[in-house]
């Protein structure tokens, strides 16, 4: 009896020591890793505040002697970053909001309602996720060119307002998990399906809808390919195009390029910070179900 007790005690002690070692190793690993992740961003921040010409000082100074806030003033006013912000916001507001609403409506129907050809329609929609977007890139361009949409924001705004497969899919997975009794009660109360959706389902599914909204915002905000294809006039450039054009215009002025990059990061960083919980949970959910 006492023998087994000491044996278990030794085993537990060994286990504890093992845990200690593994935790220390984990910390070392994570600290190195996160340093590697963070260094480029810190360098970006530091350079954005440096005086022109001192970007490449060796050894590099992490904290500049004087902070050149004028770099930010310059990129916001002279270098059109402000303009790019505005254009991006104008372009993504409608697709983000309307598209999100359309996605949720469709997702609700696919999750909860019965209708002929439901599965066929859903599979058809999912097929767009399998076929690489590259295949439709050229004919879509031709289509928009023929109806005179090239060099306007319409190709960036209109298609997104219809909603899209990934959003429908993610939200459908979520709606499937909501208890059915709530809907039945709504039905008894005489609500029509649209009212049920607006008053019962939508409020219940806030986290999923927020997550999908954020994903949509990030995708729209960071989209480079579509603006690159459709927009030619500099005054219509979205933020990403403005940033990309930086490297041509300010070839050797890295302080400006980095200030612009910092400014581009701020909105998504703030969003992530305030919505981290929903955001991470949403991704986690799709990860498991996908």
């Amino acid at each position: 009896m006492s023998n087994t007790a000491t044996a278990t005690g030794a085993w537990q002690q060994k286990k504890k020591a093992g845990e200690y070692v593994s935790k220390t190793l984990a910390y070392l690993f994570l600290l190195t890793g996160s340093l590697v992740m963070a260094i480029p961003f810190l360098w970006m921040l530091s350079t954005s505040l440096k005086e022109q010409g001192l970007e490449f000082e060796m050894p590099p100074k992490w904290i500049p002697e004087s902070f050149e806030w004028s770099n930010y003033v310059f990129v916001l006013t002279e270098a059109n970053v402000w303009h790019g912000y505005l254009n991006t916001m104008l372009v993504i507001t409608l697709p983000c909001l309307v598209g999100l609403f359309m996605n949720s409506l469709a997702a609700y129907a696919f999750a909860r309602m019965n209708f002929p050809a439901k599965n066929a329609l859903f599979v058809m929609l999912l097929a767009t996720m399998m076929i690489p977007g590259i295949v439709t890139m050229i004919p879509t361009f031709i289509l928009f060119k023929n109806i005179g949409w090239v060099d306007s924001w319409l190709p960036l705004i209109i298609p997104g307002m219809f909603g899209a497969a990934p959003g429908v899919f993610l939200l459908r997975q979520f709606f499937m998990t909501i208890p059915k009794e709530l809907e039945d009660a709504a039905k008894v109360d005489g609500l029509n399906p649209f009212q049920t959706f607006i008053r019962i389902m939508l409020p219940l599914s806030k986290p999923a809808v927020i997550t999908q909204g954020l994903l949509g915002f990030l995708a729209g905000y960071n989209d480079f390919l579509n603006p690159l294809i459709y927009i030619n006039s500099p005054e219509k450039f979205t933020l990403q195009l403005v940033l990309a054009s930086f490297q041509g215009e300010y070839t050797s002025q890295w302080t400006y390029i980095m200030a612009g990059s910092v400014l581009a990061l701020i909105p998504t960083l703030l969003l992530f910070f305030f919505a981290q919980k929903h955001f991470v949970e949403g991704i986690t959910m799709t990860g498991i179900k996908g």
Partner: protein
Amino acid sequence: MKRKEYLWAYLFVSAPIVGFLLFAFIPLSYSVYVSFTEYSGYQPPVFNGTDNYAKLMNDELFWKTMYNTFYAALGIPIGMAVALGIATALNQKIRGIGLFRTLFFLPTISSVIALTLLWKWIFNDSYGLLNYLLEFVGIQGPAWLSSERWAMPAMIIQGVWATLGINMILYLAALQGVPKSLHESAEIDGANRFQRFFRITVPCISPTTLYILITSTIAALQDFPRFQIMTEGGPNYSTTTIVYYLFQNAFRYMSMGYASAIAWMLGLLILVITLLNFWLSRRWVHYE
């Protein structure tokens, strides 16, 4: 009564379905046709049979860009292994997990353009950060992006760094779903840490591994904005990916027909690889 509900349902799903028909189905059908024509985008397309596909077969540049794309895809297994390592470390009861998670996630929420401009500079041979750090350990770094040999490895490093966060989050979620009881009973049976990791953890998270593998393969085969910004496909086409080549053909040389043929070759390739992945996965993915 039933019919009324059907109407509601069709109304609800109509927007994405109409969107699908207009912006996916019609362009998709048209692109098959365009791939069999000569088409500049200005004059109407002229049917030329399988000429585009025949040209592709003999286009050295096309094969080179194909090779480049697969070379770049080497980053996928590397990135997955690193992400799994980080997720494993984060899966313990660790202080500051939120901070670590945010740091690793930072590149995921950043603009691709800002990141690539940043890395373009890091890789600069004379005043970049990387070669400066390498000097500390006595290594004379190469001219990363302007060297035919090192440009692609540099792009792989940047790609791994940029996708680490999202893969880490997915793995972390999967790891938290691995039943503790399995580990405990194996431990009592005398299995050591490594045996437990490879015999229990790895099989348990294999569905997530498949998910990451498939989505990152599709993404890698279509990757190109960062190549355009960092190397413009050079030097000497060493970092021109298939999609970049397609893009150049379509929008720079205005040969839409030829570019459509490239698009369909790539589309088929992605389809075949995805199906192959699914088929092979039956051997190594364990569903409960």
